[in-house]
């Protein structure tokens, strides 16, 4: 898989049809999930606000998924020096930032009614997600502020790998450290805790978000690669 995609030409060939396919899947799944999600009965303690969950939780999941992708791409570009991997890493960052921001915003929108506060500095999950967002931003700034492309790329890869530590922190923060935030209720040993009525739309939305991310990621990566080809040709033209 990686080996296949590492070759730019094969990557372009595959992604040409893979990207739109993911886009289509995303549209279908999200539409389905929304129709189910908007129909759910109000929660006995959360009331209507429970519906925020269907936008919030998937956003959070996808944000972490995006950083995982960034980390993987950075690793293979740093170690195996795959051109595609570097382009993919660069393409993943802004998308990840976007989804993280979505998780933050929907989360604090939810937090006002549930906890009576938009933001709680003491809460490990909230903070670790904020860190995730800042890591994406930092990565983009680093990529933007570099004069020497090769060097800058490697430095950014290192940063991305360093930031990987944050993922388990986000995931397990709720268990390690007493927080206001919801504990694990879905991906936990012993099966989900929440009723199927809520679970199904949530999972549908999760899948939809993920496919949406994949579609955008592939597209941006393609654009990035095209850009580099252009610049290479330009250099040849000069020489």
């Amino acid at each position, binding site marked *: 898989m990686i080996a296949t995609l590492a070759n730019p030409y094969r990557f372009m060939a595959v992604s040409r049809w893979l990207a739109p396919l993911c886009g289509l899947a995303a549209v279908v799944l999200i539409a389905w999930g929304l129709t189910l999600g908007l129909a759910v009965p109000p929660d006995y303690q959360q009331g209507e606000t429970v519906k925020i969950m269907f936008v919030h939780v998937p956003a959070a999941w996808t944000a972490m998924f995006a950083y995982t992708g960034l980390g993987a791409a950075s690793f293979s570009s740093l170690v195996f020096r795959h051109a595609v991997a570097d382009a993919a890493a660069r393409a993943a960052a802004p998308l990840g930032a976007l989804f993280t921001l979505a998780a933050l915003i929907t989360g604090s929108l939810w937090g006002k009614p549930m906890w009576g506060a938009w933001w709680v500095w003491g809460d490990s999950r909230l903070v670790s997600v*904020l860190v995730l967002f800042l890591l994406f931003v930092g990565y983009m700034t680093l990529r933007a502020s570099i004069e020497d492309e090769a*060097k800058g790329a490697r430095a950014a890869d290192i940063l991305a790998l360093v930031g990987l530590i944050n993922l388990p922190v986000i995931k397990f923060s709720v268990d390690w450290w007493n927080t206001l935030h919801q504990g694990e209720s879905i991906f936990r040993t012993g099966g989900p805790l929440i009723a199927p009525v809520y679970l199904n739309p949530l999972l549908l939305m999760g899948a939809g978000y993920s496919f949406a991310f994949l579609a955008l990621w592939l597209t941006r990566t393609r654009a990035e690669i095209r850009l580099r080809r252009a610049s290479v040709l330009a250099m040849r033209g000069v020489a």
Partner: protein
Amino acid sequence: MLALLMRREISIAWGRGGGPLLAVAFLIAAASLVPLSLGPAPGPLSAAAIGVTWVALVLATLLSLDRLFQHDLEDGCLDLLALGAPPLEAVCAVKCVASWLVNGAPLAVAAPAAAIALGAAPSSAIQIAVAALTGGIAFAFVGGAGAAIALVSRRGGVLMAVIVLPLLIPPVIFGGALMATGSAGASQALALLLAYALASVALAPFAMAAACRNALG
């Protein structure tokens, strides 16, 4: 061999005057908070002491970061260090420890004194010292990683802010909780702070070395 390097780093940093300057200034500034005299209750003042300590630690670390690798890169010293027998990872770790000894440790010693001067209970003073020492190590190593990564850009400073700060947020918060003396979560916060410090000490050197090699090339 690394001991040599350590001695050299310390003497240079000391000559630049992080340490002594810092600790003394910190004590004076903290003591100057007394005239604020927020009523007889010791609570506020010692709380202020806690906050002051923590912020001082963060700033001291951040402000000494650009000296960590930048100079050595510019004056060719990093070349020499890279050409020695010890691995660059060890070199970077030593540099971080040295900068911690000069910038972080004096503060960690001065902090409890200031806190007590401001009416904190001796028990809390110990807690403050522990937190400051542990946090200092974490800051030094995480900051070092950021500094090394930022070497490739001429706008190093701004970049460092963006890179280092997110990584510093967790320890700052653990420390804040830990320093809230008597708070229930203190012991837990200490555990987290220690874990974070250990993790950074274990992982940062590799990031630093990789970033330095990249900057040298």
